[in-house]
Protein backbone atom coordinates (compact mmCIF):
# COMPACT_ATOMS: atom_id res chain seq x y z
CA UNK A 1 0.00 0.00 0.00
CA UNK A 2 2.76 2.45 0.96
CA UNK A 3 4.08 4.48 -1.95
CA UNK A 4 7.40 3.51 -3.40
CA UNK A 5 9.63 6.00 -5.17
CA UNK A 6 10.83 5.42 -8.70
CA UNK A 7 14.33 3.91 -8.84
CA UNK A 8 15.40 6.48 -11.41
CA UNK A 9 13.69 9.73 -10.42
CA UNK A 10 11.69 11.24 -7.58
CA UNK A 11 8.19 10.39 -8.83
CA UNK A 12 6.02 7.72 -7.25
CA UNK A 13 6.64 4.35 -8.80
CA UNK A 14 3.63 2.92 -10.56
CA UNK A 15 5.33 0.08 -12.39
CA UNK A 16 6.78 -2.73 -10.35
CA UNK A 17 8.74 -5.34 -12.15
CA UNK A 18 9.85 -8.52 -10.46
CA UNK A 19 12.10 -10.84 -12.38
CA UNK A 20 12.70 -14.30 -11.09
CA UNK A 21 15.95 -15.85 -12.11
CA UNK A 22 17.78 -18.68 -10.45
CA UNK A 23 15.26 -18.75 -7.61
CA UNK A 24 15.96 -15.09 -6.74
CA UNK A 25 13.66 -12.21 -7.39
CA UNK A 26 14.99 -8.91 -8.68
CA UNK A 27 12.66 -5.98 -8.23
CA UNK A 28 12.45 -2.73 -10.14
CA UNK A 29 10.15 0.14 -9.22
CA UNK A 30 9.63 2.80 -11.85
CA UNK A 31 7.33 5.68 -12.59
CA UNK A 32 5.33 5.52 -15.79
CA UNK A 33 7.66 7.80 -17.73
CA UNK A 34 10.89 6.05 -16.73
CA UNK A 35 9.25 2.69 -17.35
CA UNK A 36 8.28 3.50 -20.91
CA UNK A 37 11.74 5.01 -21.48
CA UNK A 38 13.25 1.78 -20.19
CA UNK A 39 10.97 -0.25 -22.39
CA UNK A 40 9.14 -1.93 -19.53
CA UNK A 41 5.66 -2.99 -20.56
CA UNK A 42 2.92 -1.67 -18.37
CA UNK A 43 0.36 -4.18 -17.21
CA UNK A 44 -2.35 -2.53 -15.14
CA UNK A 45 -3.50 -5.46 -12.98
CA UNK A 46 -2.67 -9.09 -13.29
CA UNK A 47 -5.87 -10.46 -14.82
CA UNK A 48 -7.53 -13.67 -13.77
CA UNK A 49 -6.91 -16.86 -15.74
CA UNK A 50 -10.26 -16.66 -17.44
CA UNK A 51 -9.50 -13.10 -18.49
CA UNK A 52 -6.11 -14.06 -19.87
CA UNK A 53 -7.72 -16.90 -21.70
CA UNK A 54 -10.52 -14.84 -23.13
CA UNK A 55 -8.01 -12.20 -24.25
CA UNK A 56 -5.90 -14.85 -25.89
CA UNK A 57 -8.95 -16.24 -27.56
CA UNK A 58 -10.06 -12.86 -28.77
CA UNK A 59 -6.55 -12.31 -30.12
CA UNK A 60 -6.75 -15.60 -31.95
CA UNK A 61 -10.13 -14.70 -33.38
CA UNK A 62 -9.24 -11.15 -34.37
CA UNK A 63 -6.37 -12.63 -36.31
CA UNK A 64 -2.99 -12.31 -34.90
CA UNK A 65 -0.50 -10.64 -37.25
CA UNK A 66 1.47 -13.85 -37.56
CA UNK A 67 -1.48 -15.99 -38.50
CA UNK A 68 -3.95 -13.74 -40.23
CA UNK A 69 -6.29 -16.17 -41.92
CA UNK A 70 -6.22 -19.55 -40.30
CA UNK A 71 -8.18 -18.83 -37.09
CA UNK A 72 -11.03 -17.09 -38.87
CA UNK A 73 -11.40 -19.96 -41.25
CA UNK A 74 -11.17 -22.58 -38.62
CA UNK A 75 -13.66 -20.89 -36.32
CA UNK A 76 -16.33 -21.66 -38.88
CA UNK A 77 -15.64 -25.39 -38.58
CA UNK A 78 -17.06 -27.44 -35.76
CA UNK A 79 -15.71 -30.44 -33.89
CA UNK A 80 -17.05 -33.51 -35.72
CA UNK A 81 -17.39 -35.40 -32.44
CA UNK A 82 -19.45 -32.98 -30.31
CA UNK A 83 -20.39 -30.20 -32.73
CA UNK A 84 -18.75 -27.40 -30.74
CA UNK A 85 -17.52 -24.55 -32.92
CA UNK A 86 -14.35 -22.65 -32.17
CA UNK A 87 -16.48 -19.53 -31.75
CA UNK A 88 -18.49 -21.25 -29.02
CA UNK A 89 -15.28 -22.30 -27.33
CA UNK A 90 -14.05 -18.72 -27.53
CA UNK A 91 -17.16 -17.53 -25.79
CA UNK A 92 -17.20 -20.09 -22.99
CA UNK A 93 -13.54 -20.98 -22.61
CA UNK A 94 -14.59 -24.63 -22.40
CA UNK A 95 -14.04 -27.37 -24.90
CA UNK A 96 -16.78 -29.90 -25.59
CA UNK A 97 -14.95 -33.21 -25.74
CA UNK A 98 -11.54 -34.84 -25.98
CA UNK A 99 -11.73 -34.80 -29.77
CA UNK A 100 -11.90 -30.96 -29.67
CA UNK A 101 -8.19 -31.02 -28.84
CA UNK A 102 -7.61 -32.74 -32.18
CA UNK A 103 -10.19 -30.70 -34.11
CA UNK A 104 -8.79 -27.37 -32.93
CA UNK A 105 -5.18 -28.44 -32.47
CA UNK A 106 -3.87 -25.71 -34.77
CA UNK A 107 -5.59 -22.90 -32.93
CA UNK A 108 -5.07 -24.34 -29.47
CA UNK A 109 -1.31 -24.77 -29.81
CA UNK A 110 -0.22 -21.12 -29.60
CA UNK A 111 -2.99 -20.33 -27.16
CA UNK A 112 -1.95 -23.07 -24.77
CA UNK A 113 1.66 -22.10 -25.03
CA UNK A 114 0.78 -18.58 -23.89
CA UNK A 115 -1.51 -19.75 -21.12
CA UNK A 116 1.07 -22.23 -19.83
CA UNK A 117 4.21 -20.09 -19.88
CA UNK A 118 5.53 -21.60 -23.08
CA UNK A 119 4.45 -25.18 -22.34
CA UNK A 120 3.35 -26.88 -25.54
CA UNK A 121 3.62 -30.57 -24.74
CA UNK A 122 2.64 -32.68 -21.81
CA UNK A 123 5.44 -33.76 -19.50
CA UNK A 124 4.49 -35.83 -16.50
CA UNK A 125 2.18 -38.63 -15.53
CA UNK A 126 0.75 -40.97 -18.12
CA UNK A 127 -2.27 -43.23 -17.44
CA UNK A 128 -1.38 -46.36 -15.59
CA UNK A 129 -3.28 -48.67 -17.90
CA UNK A 130 -0.49 -48.20 -20.40
CA UNK A 131 1.95 -50.03 -18.18
CA UNK A 132 -0.02 -53.11 -19.12
CA UNK A 133 1.09 -52.65 -22.70
CA UNK A 134 4.67 -52.43 -21.57
CA UNK A 135 4.73 -55.39 -19.24
CA UNK A 136 2.51 -57.70 -21.28
CA UNK A 137 2.64 -56.46 -24.85
CA UNK A 138 0.91 -59.19 -26.74
CA UNK A 139 -2.23 -60.73 -25.30
CA UNK A 140 -4.34 -57.77 -26.25
CA UNK A 141 -7.87 -58.01 -25.01
CA UNK A 142 -6.91 -59.83 -21.83
CA UNK A 143 -5.77 -56.60 -20.27
CA UNK A 144 -8.72 -54.71 -18.89
CA UNK A 145 -7.54 -51.22 -19.78
CA UNK A 146 -6.34 -51.94 -23.29
CA UNK A 147 -9.69 -51.44 -24.98
CA UNK A 148 -8.52 -49.02 -27.62
CA UNK A 149 -5.61 -51.08 -28.86
CA UNK A 150 -7.19 -54.50 -28.46
CA UNK A 151 -7.56 -56.49 -31.63
CA UNK A 152 -5.38 -54.36 -33.85
CA UNK A 153 -2.79 -57.15 -34.27
CA UNK A 154 0.41 -56.04 -35.97
CA UNK A 155 -0.27 -52.42 -35.24
CA UNK A 156 0.16 -53.12 -31.56
CA UNK A 157 3.73 -54.32 -32.19
CA UNK A 158 4.87 -51.16 -33.85
CA UNK A 159 2.84 -49.18 -31.42
CA UNK A 160 4.37 -50.71 -28.32
CA UNK A 161 7.82 -50.24 -29.79
CA UNK A 162 7.13 -46.59 -30.46
CA UNK A 163 5.47 -46.23 -27.10
CA UNK A 164 8.55 -47.56 -25.37
CA UNK A 165 10.70 -45.13 -27.33
CA UNK A 166 8.35 -42.31 -26.43
CA UNK A 167 8.72 -43.25 -22.77
CA UNK A 168 12.48 -42.89 -22.92
CA UNK A 169 12.33 -39.60 -24.77
CA UNK A 170 9.63 -38.31 -22.48
CA UNK A 171 11.68 -39.18 -19.42
CA UNK A 172 14.75 -37.50 -20.84
CA UNK A 173 12.60 -34.50 -21.72
CA UNK A 174 11.27 -34.29 -18.22
CA UNK A 175 14.81 -34.41 -16.84
CA UNK A 176 15.96 -31.77 -19.29
CA UNK A 177 13.10 -29.49 -18.25
CA UNK A 178 13.87 -30.07 -14.57
CA UNK A 179 17.51 -29.21 -15.21
CA UNK A 180 16.40 -26.16 -17.21
CA UNK A 181 18.36 -27.48 -20.18
CA UNK A 182 16.00 -26.03 -22.72
CA UNK A 183 18.15 -26.65 -25.78
CA UNK A 184 18.16 -30.33 -25.13
CA UNK A 185 14.48 -30.22 -24.24
CA UNK A 186 13.69 -28.64 -27.60
CA UNK A 187 15.53 -31.40 -29.44
CA UNK A 188 13.78 -34.08 -27.43
CA UNK A 189 10.46 -32.42 -28.03
CA UNK A 190 11.02 -32.57 -31.79
CA UNK A 191 11.83 -36.22 -31.50
CA UNK A 192 8.67 -36.79 -29.54
CA UNK A 193 6.72 -35.06 -32.31
CA UNK A 194 8.05 -37.57 -34.82
CA UNK A 195 7.12 -40.50 -32.62
CA UNK A 196 3.65 -39.08 -32.18
CA UNK A 197 3.28 -38.78 -35.94
CA UNK A 198 4.14 -42.46 -36.28
CA UNK A 199 1.73 -43.36 -33.51
CA UNK A 200 -1.00 -41.34 -35.10
CA UNK A 201 -0.56 -43.19 -38.37
CA UNK A 202 -0.68 -46.53 -36.53
CA UNK A 203 -3.59 -45.67 -34.32
CA UNK A 204 -5.81 -43.05 -35.95
CA UNK A 205 -7.89 -41.22 -33.37
CA UNK A 206 -11.19 -42.37 -34.85
CA UNK A 207 -13.85 -42.88 -32.20
CA UNK A 208 -11.47 -42.98 -29.30
CA UNK A 209 -10.63 -39.46 -28.26
CA UNK A 210 -7.44 -40.50 -26.54
CA UNK A 211 -4.65 -40.83 -29.04
CA UNK A 212 -2.01 -43.50 -28.84
CA UNK A 213 -0.85 -43.49 -25.30
CA UNK A 214 2.73 -44.06 -24.28
CA UNK A 215 3.61 -45.73 -20.98
CA UNK A 216 4.06 -43.74 -17.85
CA UNK A 217 7.15 -41.61 -17.96
CA UNK A 218 7.75 -39.49 -14.92
CA UNK A 219 6.10 -40.94 -11.92
CA UNK A 220 7.42 -39.92 -8.60
CA UNK A 221 9.29 -42.93 -7.26
CA UNK A 222 7.13 -43.46 -4.21
CA UNK A 223 7.86 -46.73 -2.47
CA UNK A 224 4.21 -47.39 -1.66
CA UNK A 225 3.13 -47.06 -5.25
CA UNK A 226 2.91 -50.17 -7.28
CA UNK A 227 3.23 -52.44 -4.30
CA UNK A 228 0.24 -54.68 -4.45
CA UNK A 229 0.12 -55.07 -0.70
CA UNK A 230 0.02 -51.38 -0.03
CA UNK A 231 -2.96 -50.58 -2.17
CA UNK A 232 -5.60 -52.35 -0.17
CA UNK A 233 -4.52 -50.74 3.05
CA UNK A 234 -6.00 -47.70 4.64
CA UNK A 235 -4.89 -44.23 3.67
Amino acid at each position, binding site marked *: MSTVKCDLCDNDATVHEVKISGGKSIERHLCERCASAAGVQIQPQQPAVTQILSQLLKGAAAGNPQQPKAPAQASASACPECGLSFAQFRQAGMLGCAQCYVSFEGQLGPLLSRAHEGGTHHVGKVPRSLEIIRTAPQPAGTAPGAGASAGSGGAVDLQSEELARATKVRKALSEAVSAENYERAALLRDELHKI*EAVLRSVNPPAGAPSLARPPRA*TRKPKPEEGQPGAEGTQP
Partner: protein
Amino acid sequence: MSNTGGFAGELFRGGAEWLSGRGGESDVVISSRVRLARNLAGFPFVCRASRIQRQAVLDLTRQRLTTTGIASRVLWVDVHRAGPLERTLMVERHLISKEHARGAPGAPAAQAACPTPAGQAGNEAAAEPRGVAISLPDESLSVMVNEEDHLRLQVVRPGLELSQAFADVNRVDDLLEGPSTTGLGGKPLEFAFSPRFGYLTACPTNVGTGIRVSVMLHLPALKLVGEMDKVRRATRDMGLAVRGYYGEGSEAAGEFYQISNQTTLGKPETVILQEFEREIIPQVIQYERASRRLLLEKRKRMLEDKVFRSLGLLRAARLLTPEEAIVLLSDVRLGVLAGLVTDIELATVNQLILLTQPAHLQRVVGHDLDQGERREARADFVRKAMGAG
Protein backbone atom coordinates in the same frame (compact mmCIF):
# COMPACT_ATOMS: atom_id res chain seq x y z
CA MET B 1 -21.33 -45.85 1.66
CA SER B 2 -24.56 -44.42 2.88
CA ASN B 3 -26.52 -42.16 0.61
CA THR B 4 -27.83 -38.70 1.24
CA GLY B 5 -30.20 -39.44 4.13
CA GLY B 6 -28.73 -37.84 7.22
CA PHE B 7 -25.17 -37.96 5.98
CA ALA B 8 -24.49 -34.57 7.49
CA GLY B 9 -24.23 -36.29 10.85
CA GLU B 10 -21.40 -38.42 9.49
CA LEU B 11 -19.54 -35.36 8.36
CA PHE B 12 -20.16 -33.44 11.49
CA ARG B 13 -18.90 -36.17 13.78
CA GLY B 14 -15.25 -35.50 12.98
CA GLY B 15 -13.62 -32.10 12.81
CA ALA B 16 -12.21 -31.17 9.44
CA GLU B 17 -8.74 -32.68 9.52
CA TRP B 18 -7.24 -29.89 7.43
CA LEU B 19 -8.19 -27.37 10.12
CA SER B 20 -6.75 -29.43 12.95
CA GLY B 21 -3.64 -27.29 13.25
CA ARG B 22 -1.45 -30.37 12.87
CA GLY B 23 1.09 -30.79 10.11
CA GLY B 24 4.31 -29.01 9.24
CA GLU B 25 4.74 -25.24 9.55
CA SER B 26 1.23 -24.97 10.94
CA ASP B 27 1.89 -21.56 12.49
CA VAL B 28 1.66 -20.17 8.96
CA VAL B 29 0.37 -22.95 6.73
CA ILE B 30 -3.23 -23.96 7.35
CA SER B 31 -3.52 -26.67 4.73
CA SER B 32 -2.08 -28.20 1.57
CA ARG B 33 -4.29 -29.34 -1.28
CA VAL B 34 -3.53 -31.24 -4.47
CA ARG B 35 -6.23 -31.65 -7.08
CA LEU B 36 -6.23 -33.69 -10.30
CA ALA B 37 -8.68 -33.10 -13.14
CA ARG B 38 -9.67 -36.16 -15.18
CA ASN B 39 -12.23 -36.96 -17.85
CA LEU B 40 -13.51 -40.30 -19.08
CA ALA B 41 -12.64 -41.28 -22.63
CA GLY B 42 -15.66 -41.79 -24.84
CA PHE B 43 -17.93 -39.19 -23.19
CA PRO B 44 -18.29 -35.51 -24.01
CA PHE B 45 -17.07 -33.16 -21.29
CA VAL B 46 -19.67 -32.33 -18.64
CA CYS B 47 -20.67 -29.01 -20.14
CA ARG B 48 -21.69 -30.71 -23.38
CA ALA B 49 -23.02 -33.98 -22.04
CA SER B 50 -26.72 -34.84 -22.01
CA ARG B 51 -28.40 -35.73 -18.76
CA ILE B 52 -28.27 -39.40 -19.77
CA GLN B 53 -24.56 -39.18 -20.45
CA ARG B 54 -23.96 -37.41 -17.13
CA GLN B 55 -25.91 -40.10 -15.37
CA ALA B 56 -23.83 -42.77 -17.13
CA VAL B 57 -20.61 -41.05 -16.03
CA LEU B 58 -21.97 -40.83 -12.51
CA ASP B 59 -22.94 -44.52 -12.40
CA LEU B 60 -19.61 -45.69 -13.80
CA THR B 61 -17.50 -43.58 -11.50
CA ARG B 62 -19.63 -44.15 -8.41
CA GLN B 63 -19.22 -47.89 -8.71
CA ARG B 64 -15.50 -47.54 -9.12
CA LEU B 65 -15.13 -44.98 -6.32
CA THR B 66 -17.11 -46.94 -3.76
CA THR B 67 -15.63 -50.40 -4.38
CA THR B 68 -11.99 -49.97 -5.31
CA GLY B 69 -10.60 -49.32 -1.85
CA ILE B 70 -9.74 -45.66 -2.32
CA ALA B 71 -10.23 -45.26 1.46
CA SER B 72 -11.14 -47.48 4.38
CA ARG B 73 -14.63 -45.95 4.36
CA VAL B 74 -16.19 -44.00 1.56
CA LEU B 75 -19.23 -41.76 1.84
CA TRP B 76 -21.01 -41.22 -1.47
CA VAL B 77 -23.36 -38.27 -1.86
CA ASP B 78 -25.66 -37.62 -4.82
CA VAL B 79 -25.16 -33.86 -4.70
CA HIS B 80 -28.19 -33.13 -6.90
CA ARG B 81 -30.39 -34.89 -4.35
CA ALA B 82 -28.80 -33.39 -1.24
CA GLY B 83 -30.53 -30.60 0.65
CA PRO B 84 -29.26 -27.02 0.54
CA LEU B 85 -27.91 -27.14 4.09
CA GLU B 86 -25.96 -30.33 3.39
CA ARG B 87 -24.50 -28.88 0.22
CA THR B 88 -23.38 -25.74 2.04
CA LEU B 89 -21.92 -27.87 4.81
CA MET B 90 -19.74 -29.64 2.25
CA VAL B 91 -18.69 -26.33 0.68
CA GLU B 92 -17.69 -24.96 4.07
CA ARG B 93 -15.65 -28.09 4.72
CA HIS B 94 -13.95 -27.59 1.32
CA LEU B 95 -15.18 -30.99 0.14
CA ILE B 96 -16.99 -29.59 -2.90
CA SER B 97 -16.87 -26.28 -4.77
CA LYS B 98 -19.61 -23.69 -4.71
CA GLU B 99 -20.23 -24.43 -8.38
CA HIS B 100 -20.69 -28.10 -7.64
CA ALA B 101 -23.15 -27.29 -4.88
CA ARG B 102 -25.09 -25.01 -7.20
CA GLY B 103 -24.85 -27.22 -10.26
CA ALA B 104 -23.74 -24.54 -12.72
CA PRO B 105 -20.38 -23.33 -13.93
CA GLY B 106 -18.97 -20.38 -12.02
CA ALA B 107 -18.10 -17.75 -14.59
CA PRO B 108 -21.13 -15.99 -16.10
CA ALA B 109 -19.58 -16.28 -19.58
CA ALA B 110 -19.28 -20.03 -19.16
CA GLN B 111 -22.81 -20.20 -17.83
CA ALA B 112 -24.17 -18.35 -20.82
CA ALA B 113 -22.21 -20.26 -23.38
CA CYS B 114 -21.93 -23.66 -21.76
CA PRO B 115 -23.94 -25.32 -24.48
CA THR B 116 -25.83 -27.89 -22.45
CA PRO B 117 -28.39 -29.73 -24.54
CA ALA B 118 -31.31 -28.39 -22.60
CA GLY B 119 -29.75 -24.92 -22.35
CA GLN B 120 -31.03 -24.85 -18.82
CA ALA B 121 -30.12 -22.72 -15.86
CA GLY B 122 -31.08 -22.31 -12.22
CA ASN B 123 -33.25 -25.12 -10.89
CA GLU B 124 -32.79 -27.22 -14.00
CA ALA B 125 -29.01 -27.09 -13.66
CA ALA B 126 -29.27 -27.90 -9.95
CA ALA B 127 -30.94 -31.20 -10.88
CA GLU B 128 -28.12 -32.36 -13.19
CA PRO B 129 -26.67 -35.66 -11.98
CA ARG B 130 -23.50 -35.11 -9.99
CA GLY B 131 -21.91 -36.48 -6.87
CA VAL B 132 -18.99 -36.62 -4.50
CA ALA B 133 -17.10 -39.43 -2.81
CA ILE B 134 -15.57 -38.56 0.57
CA SER B 135 -13.13 -40.57 2.65
CA LEU B 136 -14.23 -41.13 6.24
CA PRO B 137 -13.56 -40.37 8.98
CA ASP B 138 -10.76 -37.98 8.02
CA GLU B 139 -12.43 -36.38 4.95
CA SER B 140 -8.97 -35.76 3.52
CA LEU B 141 -9.97 -37.16 0.13
CA SER B 142 -12.91 -36.04 -1.96
CA VAL B 143 -13.72 -36.83 -5.55
CA MET B 144 -16.26 -34.60 -7.27
CA VAL B 145 -18.06 -36.19 -10.20
CA ASN B 146 -19.50 -34.06 -13.02
CA GLU B 147 -18.16 -30.76 -11.83
CA GLU B 148 -16.34 -28.88 -14.63
CA ASP B 149 -14.57 -32.15 -15.46
CA HIS B 150 -15.93 -35.66 -15.03
CA LEU B 151 -13.63 -36.20 -12.07
CA ARG B 152 -11.93 -33.79 -9.74
CA LEU B 153 -9.84 -35.72 -7.24
CA GLN B 154 -8.50 -33.78 -4.29
CA VAL B 155 -6.59 -34.46 -1.11
CA VAL B 156 -6.33 -31.80 1.59
CA ARG B 157 -3.93 -32.22 4.47
CA PRO B 158 -3.20 -29.99 7.45
CA GLY B 159 0.00 -27.93 7.38
CA LEU B 160 2.61 -28.08 4.66
CA GLU B 161 2.30 -31.65 3.39
CA LEU B 162 2.15 -31.32 -0.35
CA SER B 163 4.24 -34.39 -1.18
CA GLN B 164 2.03 -36.55 0.99
CA ALA B 165 -1.12 -35.00 -0.45
CA PHE B 166 0.15 -35.70 -3.95
CA ALA B 167 1.12 -39.27 -3.07
CA ASP B 168 -2.39 -39.84 -1.71
CA VAL B 169 -4.24 -38.38 -4.66
CA ASN B 170 -1.92 -40.06 -7.15
CA ARG B 171 -2.60 -43.41 -5.54
CA VAL B 172 -6.35 -42.89 -5.93
CA ASP B 173 -5.86 -41.84 -9.55
CA ASP B 174 -3.93 -45.08 -10.17
CA LEU B 175 -6.60 -47.16 -8.45
CA LEU B 176 -9.40 -45.70 -10.53
CA GLU B 177 -7.82 -46.49 -13.85
CA GLY B 178 -5.76 -49.50 -12.88
CA PRO B 179 -6.78 -53.08 -12.28
CA SER B 180 -8.92 -53.41 -9.18
CA THR B 181 -7.10 -54.54 -6.08
CA THR B 182 -10.18 -55.56 -4.15
CA GLY B 183 -11.53 -57.94 -6.78
CA LEU B 184 -14.55 -55.67 -6.94
CA GLY B 185 -14.92 -52.29 -8.51
CA GLY B 186 -16.28 -52.96 -11.97
CA LYS B 187 -14.40 -51.78 -15.01
CA PRO B 188 -11.30 -49.63 -14.68
CA LEU B 189 -11.91 -46.09 -15.85
CA GLU B 190 -10.22 -44.99 -19.04
CA PHE B 191 -9.16 -41.37 -18.96
CA ALA B 192 -9.06 -39.04 -21.94
CA PHE B 193 -5.38 -38.54 -22.67
CA SER B 194 -3.28 -37.45 -25.61
CA PRO B 195 0.50 -37.77 -25.93
CA ARG B 196 0.83 -34.13 -26.87
CA PHE B 197 -1.62 -32.50 -24.47
CA GLY B 198 -1.64 -35.04 -21.64
CA TYR B 199 -4.81 -35.41 -19.58
CA LEU B 200 -7.55 -33.65 -21.48
CA THR B 201 -9.72 -31.23 -19.54
CA ALA B 202 -12.79 -29.13 -20.36
CA CYS B 203 -10.90 -25.91 -19.78
CA PRO B 204 -7.54 -25.79 -21.57
CA THR B 205 -6.00 -23.98 -18.60
CA ASN B 206 -5.99 -27.33 -16.76
CA VAL B 207 -4.76 -29.56 -19.58
CA GLY B 208 -1.59 -31.64 -19.27
CA THR B 209 -1.04 -32.85 -15.75
CA GLY B 210 -4.46 -31.56 -14.66
CA ILE B 211 -2.81 -30.74 -11.36
CA ARG B 212 -3.62 -27.83 -9.10
CA VAL B 213 -1.46 -27.41 -6.05
CA SER B 214 -2.81 -24.99 -3.45
CA VAL B 215 -1.51 -23.96 -0.08
CA MET B 216 -3.65 -22.02 2.37
CA LEU B 217 -1.60 -19.58 4.41
CA HIS B 218 -2.33 -17.31 7.33
CA LEU B 219 -0.37 -14.10 6.74
CA PRO B 220 -1.64 -11.52 9.25
CA ALA B 221 1.77 -10.07 10.11
CA LEU B 222 2.71 -9.45 6.47
CA LYS B 223 -0.51 -7.53 6.14
CA LEU B 224 0.17 -5.49 9.29
CA VAL B 225 3.66 -4.49 8.21
CA GLY B 226 2.35 -3.56 4.76
CA GLU B 227 4.25 -6.19 2.82
CA MET B 228 1.31 -8.24 1.59
CA ASP B 229 1.06 -6.43 -1.74
CA LYS B 230 4.67 -7.28 -2.42
CA VAL B 231 3.99 -10.95 -1.78
CA ARG B 232 0.95 -10.82 -4.06
CA ARG B 233 2.93 -9.22 -6.84
CA ALA B 234 5.86 -11.59 -6.53
CA THR B 235 3.70 -14.70 -6.53
CA ARG B 236 1.65 -13.44 -9.46
CA ASP B 237 4.79 -12.69 -11.40
CA MET B 238 5.79 -16.29 -10.86
CA GLY B 239 2.61 -17.30 -12.65
CA LEU B 240 0.77 -18.28 -9.49
CA ALA B 241 -2.71 -17.36 -8.38
CA VAL B 242 -3.42 -15.76 -5.02
CA ARG B 243 -6.97 -16.23 -3.78
CA GLY B 244 -8.94 -15.77 -0.61
CA TYR B 245 -10.17 -18.24 1.98
CA TYR B 246 -13.12 -19.33 -0.13
CA GLY B 247 -11.12 -20.03 -3.28
CA GLU B 248 -11.77 -18.82 -6.79
CA GLY B 249 -13.24 -15.35 -7.06
CA SER B 250 -12.93 -14.60 -3.36
CA GLU B 251 -11.02 -11.87 -1.64
CA ALA B 252 -8.92 -12.62 1.40
CA ALA B 253 -10.98 -12.95 4.55
CA GLY B 254 -9.08 -12.55 7.77
CA GLU B 255 -5.70 -12.67 6.03
CA PHE B 256 -6.09 -16.26 4.90
CA TYR B 257 -4.73 -16.70 1.39
CA GLN B 258 -4.52 -19.57 -1.05
CA ILE B 259 -1.56 -19.69 -3.41
CA SER B 260 -1.83 -22.09 -6.34
CA ASN B 261 -0.20 -22.92 -9.66
CA GLN B 262 -1.76 -21.95 -12.97
CA THR B 263 0.53 -23.77 -15.37
CA THR B 264 -0.31 -27.41 -16.01
CA LEU B 265 1.24 -28.09 -19.42
CA GLY B 266 4.93 -28.68 -20.00
CA LYS B 267 5.99 -29.16 -16.39
CA PRO B 268 5.88 -32.51 -14.60
CA GLU B 269 3.93 -32.81 -11.35
CA THR B 270 7.12 -33.34 -9.39
CA VAL B 271 8.62 -30.05 -10.55
CA ILE B 272 5.47 -28.08 -9.73
CA LEU B 273 5.37 -29.67 -6.27
CA GLN B 274 9.06 -29.08 -5.61
CA GLU B 275 8.83 -25.43 -6.59
CA PHE B 276 6.02 -25.01 -4.12
CA GLU B 277 7.34 -27.08 -1.26
CA ARG B 278 11.00 -26.18 -1.42
CA GLU B 279 11.11 -22.70 -2.88
CA ILE B 280 7.99 -20.59 -2.98
CA ILE B 281 6.12 -21.49 0.19
CA PRO B 282 9.19 -21.63 2.50
CA GLN B 283 10.07 -18.11 1.38
CA VAL B 284 6.61 -16.82 2.20
CA ILE B 285 6.72 -18.62 5.57
CA GLN B 286 10.05 -17.03 6.45
CA TYR B 287 8.76 -13.64 5.39
CA GLU B 288 5.67 -13.97 7.59
CA ARG B 289 7.67 -15.21 10.59
CA ALA B 290 10.15 -12.36 10.24
CA SER B 291 7.22 -9.93 10.16
CA ARG B 292 5.76 -11.48 13.31
CA ARG B 293 9.11 -11.11 15.08
CA LEU B 294 9.40 -7.54 13.88
CA LEU B 295 5.97 -6.70 15.25
CA LEU B 296 6.78 -8.27 18.62
CA GLU B 297 10.11 -6.51 18.92
CA LYS B 298 9.34 -3.10 17.48
CA ARG B 299 5.58 -2.61 17.59
CA LYS B 300 4.41 -4.79 20.44
CA ARG B 301 1.86 -2.28 21.79
CA MET B 302 0.22 -1.93 18.41
CA LEU B 303 0.12 -5.72 18.01
CA GLU B 304 -1.32 -6.23 21.49
CA ASP B 305 -3.91 -3.56 20.85
CA LYS B 306 -5.00 -5.20 17.61
CA VAL B 307 -5.18 -8.70 19.12
CA PHE B 308 -6.92 -7.78 22.35
CA ARG B 309 -9.43 -5.47 20.67
CA SER B 310 -10.46 -8.37 18.44
CA LEU B 311 -10.55 -10.76 21.37
CA GLY B 312 -12.64 -8.24 23.28
CA LEU B 313 -15.12 -8.02 20.46
CA LEU B 314 -15.41 -11.78 20.17
CA ARG B 315 -15.98 -12.03 23.92
CA ALA B 316 -18.51 -9.22 24.04
CA ALA B 317 -20.39 -9.08 20.74
CA ARG B 318 -24.10 -9.97 20.68
CA LEU B 319 -24.36 -10.13 16.89
CA LEU B 320 -21.67 -11.44 14.54
CA THR B 321 -21.55 -11.93 10.76
CA PRO B 322 -19.35 -14.75 9.40
CA GLU B 323 -17.12 -12.17 7.68
CA GLU B 324 -16.53 -10.25 10.90
CA ALA B 325 -15.95 -13.45 12.84
CA ILE B 326 -13.21 -14.65 10.52
CA VAL B 327 -11.42 -11.28 10.58
CA LEU B 328 -11.46 -11.20 14.39
CA LEU B 329 -10.47 -14.86 14.68
CA SER B 330 -7.54 -14.19 12.37
CA ASP B 331 -6.24 -11.51 14.78
CA VAL B 332 -6.72 -13.78 17.78
CA ARG B 333 -4.95 -16.63 15.99
CA LEU B 334 -1.96 -14.32 15.54
CA GLY B 335 -2.18 -13.40 19.23
CA VAL B 336 -2.16 -17.06 20.32
CA LEU B 337 0.81 -17.86 18.06
CA ALA B 338 2.73 -14.80 19.23
CA GLY B 339 2.23 -15.88 22.84
CA LEU B 340 0.13 -12.83 23.70
CA VAL B 341 -3.09 -14.76 24.27
CA THR B 342 -2.47 -17.65 26.62
CA ASP B 343 -5.93 -18.75 27.76
CA ILE B 344 -7.22 -19.90 24.37
CA GLU B 345 -6.07 -22.99 22.49
CA LEU B 346 -5.01 -22.68 18.86
CA ALA B 347 -7.27 -25.63 18.06
CA THR B 348 -10.26 -23.71 19.43
CA VAL B 349 -9.55 -20.77 17.15
CA ASN B 350 -9.08 -23.06 14.14
CA GLN B 351 -12.32 -24.90 14.78
CA LEU B 352 -14.24 -21.64 15.30
CA ILE B 353 -13.20 -20.52 11.81
CA LEU B 354 -15.23 -23.46 10.50
CA LEU B 355 -18.00 -23.60 13.08
CA THR B 356 -18.96 -19.94 12.62
CA GLN B 357 -19.82 -20.54 8.96
CA PRO B 358 -23.60 -20.50 8.33
CA ALA B 359 -24.27 -24.21 7.71
CA HIS B 360 -21.95 -25.37 10.50
CA LEU B 361 -23.49 -22.94 12.92
CA GLN B 362 -26.92 -24.40 12.24
CA ARG B 363 -25.55 -27.87 12.88
CA VAL B 364 -24.15 -26.64 16.18
CA VAL B 365 -27.46 -25.10 17.17
CA GLY B 366 -29.39 -28.06 15.86
CA HIS B 367 -32.03 -26.31 13.79
CA ASP B 368 -32.50 -23.93 10.86
CA LEU B 369 -31.98 -20.23 11.50
CA ASP B 370 -32.57 -17.16 9.39
CA GLN B 371 -29.75 -14.70 8.85
CA GLY B 372 -30.61 -12.49 11.82
CA GLU B 373 -30.92 -15.46 14.17
CA ARG B 374 -27.61 -16.79 12.92
CA ARG B 375 -25.80 -13.57 13.84
CA GLU B 376 -27.11 -13.85 17.35
CA ALA B 377 -26.39 -17.58 17.65
CA ARG B 378 -22.90 -17.06 16.24
CA ALA B 379 -22.08 -14.37 18.79
CA ASP B 380 -23.45 -16.53 21.64
CA PHE B 381 -21.49 -19.56 20.49
CA VAL B 382 -18.23 -17.63 20.11
CA ARG B 383 -18.58 -15.97 23.52
CA LYS B 384 -18.97 -19.35 25.19
CA ALA B 385 -16.07 -20.90 23.27
CA MET B 386 -13.89 -17.94 24.26
CA GLY B 387 -14.73 -18.35 27.91
CA ALA B 388 -17.02 -15.33 28.24
CA GLY B 389 -20.66 -15.42 29.34
